[in-house]
C-alpha cells in the first residue's frame, strides 16, 4: 500500500512553523517513512501533483491571488490542517486590519501601485473549511507530530484547548502574576507550549492565541489593576494573534473602547 501524501503550503508567514517539521530531527526519518512528502519547499523543490492526503497550511491570506490559491489547495486536499498563528488568526501582519492600509503601503514602497494586496490579513478558516487548527507562534513540534500521528491513524489529536495555566501548574511553575506581579496572558491563552515563558520567569506573550473559554475583559482589568499601563496591556493583546476576536476584545478593553462589533 502506498504511503499517504503530505503537502506543505506557505502563505503570508515567516516559514518558522513549517520549519518545525524539519526540526523533528529525531523523528524525521520516521515521519518520512510513514508519509510521502509530495510538496515541501523547505526540503525539496520537487512538487508532486495532487490530490494530497494531508495538507499543512502555514500563513495568512493577504493577497487576491492567495485567496484563490487556498481554494485550489483545499480542493486538492483530503485533510487540511492549518499551522501557526498566521494561518489560524491572521498573524502579526493582521495589525494592518485596523489601520490605513494604503498609507502603510505608501510609507514602505516607492511604487505601491505595483502591489496587489488585500486590506486585511485573515486566517485560512475565513476562506475555506479547515479540518484542524494547530496553534502557536511558532507551533510546537511535539504537537505537530501528534497531529500527523493522529491523522495517520484516524484518531483525534491530543491537543488541549484550555488555558496555559494548567501547563504551569502541571510543571510546578510558580505563577509569575501572583508571585511577582508580572503581566502574563497565560490565563486567557491556549495551551500547547508547555508554559515555556513562565517557566523561564517571563509572563506569557499569548503566542498560541485565545484559549477555548478565554475571558479577555477581566484579564485586561486585572493587568491594569496590577499597575500595568493601559497601552502596555493593549500591546500585549495586539501581537501574534492581534486579530483573534478574544484578543481584540482584550485590547479594546485596555483602550477603554466598547467591545469589537463583529464579536458576540
Amino acid at each position: 500500500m502506498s504511503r499517504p501524501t503530505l503537502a506543505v503550503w506557505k502563505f503570508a508567514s515567516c516559514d518558522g512553523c513549517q520549519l518545525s517539521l524539519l526540526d523533528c530531527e529525531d523523528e524525521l526519518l520516521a515521519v518520512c517513512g510513514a508519509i510521502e512528502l509530495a510538496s515541501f519547499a523547505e526540503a525539496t523543490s520537487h512538487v508532486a501533483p495532487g490530490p494530497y492526503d494531508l495538507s499543512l497550511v502555514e500563513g495568512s491570506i493577504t493577497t487576491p491571488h492567495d485567496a484563490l490559491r487556498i481554494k485550489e489547495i483545499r480542493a486538492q486536499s483530503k485533510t487540511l490542517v492549518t499551522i501557526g498563528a498566521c494561518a489560524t488568526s491572521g498573524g502579526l501582519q493582521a495589525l494592518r486590519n485596523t489601520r490605513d492600509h494604503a498609507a502603510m503601503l505608501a510609507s514602505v514602497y516607492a511604487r505601491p501601485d505595483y502591489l496587489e494586496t488585500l486590506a486585511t490579513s485573515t486566517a485560512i478558516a475565513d476562506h475555506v473549511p479547515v479540518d484542524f487548527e494547530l496553534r502557536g507562534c511558532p507551533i510546537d513540534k511535539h504537537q505537530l507530530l501528534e497531529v500527523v500521528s493522529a491523522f495517520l491513524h484516524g484518531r483525534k489529536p491530543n491537543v488541549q484547548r484550555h488555558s496555559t495555566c494548567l501547563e504551569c501548574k502541571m510543571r510546578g511553575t510558580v505563577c509569575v502574576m501572583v508571585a511577582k506581579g508580572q503581566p502574563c496572558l497565560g490565563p486567557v491563552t491556549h495551551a500547547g507550549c508547555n508554559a515555556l515563558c513562565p517557566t523561564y520567569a517571563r509572563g506569557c506573550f499569548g503566542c498560541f492565541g485565545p484559549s477555548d473559554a478565554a475571558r479577555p475583559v477581566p484579564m485586561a482589568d486585572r493587568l491594569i489593576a496590577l499597575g500595568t499601563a493601559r497601552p502596555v496591556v493593549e500591546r500585549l493583546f495586539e501581537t501574534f494573534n492581534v486579530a483573534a476576536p478574544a484578543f481584540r476584545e482584550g485590547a479594546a478593553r485596555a483602550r477603554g473602547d466598547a467591545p469589537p462589533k463583529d464579536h458576540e
Partner: protein
Amino acid sequence: MLDLNQRVVLDRAGFAALLQALADDGHALVGPTVGDGAIVLDAIAGIDDLPRGVGDDQAPGHYRLRDRGDAALFGYAVSPHAWKRELLPPRVPLVQIRRSATGLAIEAAPAPTRKVAFIGVRGCELAAIAIQDRVLATGAHPDADYAARRAQSFILAVHCGSPAGTCFCVSMETGPRARGAFDLAATELLDGEHRFVIEIGSDAGRAILARVASRTATTDDVTAATAVTDHAATQMGRAMPTAGLRDLLMANLEHPRWQHVADRCLGCANCTMSCPTCFCTSVEDTTDLSGDVATRTRRWDSCFTADFAYVHGGSARPSLRARYRQWMTHKLATWHDQFDSSGCVGCGRCITWCPVGIDLTEEVAAIRAAPAPRSHADG
C-alpha cells in the same frame, strides 16, 4: 524504647539528623525550599535546603516572600504546591499496548516503588491527604497507583505557627495543629533555644526517631509548643462559617452571585490545580507515528476547562457560571453527600493563586448575606 505518647525534643542538629535518618532509610526527601520566588515543595538533600528565616505574605491573587529576621525553618504558610503532586502526579502512564506480527502485547505501567518522606506537612494538608485517601484509596475501586505511593510515604508533619492572610483552617477544623495520620509531628520553637518538640504518630515514626539523639520534653516544652498553635489559631486571615453551609448552597443554585463571580472569573483553572483535594483527571490515548505503540496516560484536568464536561452533542456546563458553581458546590456541599466530609480544608490556595483574587469565603459570605427565598430551595 520511645512511647507513642511520649514527646521528645530535638535541637537543630537533632532535626538535621532526623532528616538524614529518613534519607538513610531509603526515603527521597521532599519538602519546602525557596524557588521561583516562592516556597515550593521539591527534592531536598537535608536541613540546609529548608527555607531559613523566610516568611510569606498571602492575599487574594497575591504572594510574596519576606525576610522574617529569625532562624525559623517553617515560618510560613502553605506552598503553591500541594502534596498531591507526589501522590497524584500531574501525569501518570497507565498502560502501553504494542502491536506486532504475533498480536497485541498489553503492558501495565510499573507500580511506583519510590519511598518518599514528606517534610513539613501542615494540618490542612494532612486533612487534604486524608480526603484524597478516602476518595482514591478506599471503596470498591481503589486507585492502585495512588495507594502504592501513599503506602510508601512517610509523613513528618509540622504544626503551623505562621498562618497566612488567606488561611481559614480553624473554620474547617483542620489546623493549625496537625491531626490524623502523621508518622511524626513537630512544633518548631524559636523562643530560647531553637528546638523542635516531636510527637510520635506511628511505629515507623518511632523507629526513625529512635535513631536520633533526643531528650524527653519538659512540661515547659510542651506548654510552649501548645502556645504556638494556640496563637496561630488566632491569626487566621479568613473565616468561613460552615454551619448549614451545604444546605445554604444547594438552596441557592440560582443565586445572582454565581453570575457576579463568573463576570470576574478567568476560567483559567488555577483554583482547581492549586487545591490539595481536587482530584479530577482525564485519560489520553496517543500512538507513535508507526501506530505500533499506543500509550494511555492519566493527567490532571479541571472542571473549569470547556472540554472537561463535553459529552455527546456539547458541554454539560457551557457557561463559566455553571462551571464555577459546579466547583464550589461540589467542594463545599455535595462533597458531604459523596464522601462524608467537606472537600475544603481551609488552606487558602485557591484564593492566593487565583490570578484575579476570587475568594470563596467572600462568595459564600455574599450568598449567606442574601440567600434566596425558601421557595427556590428545591429548584
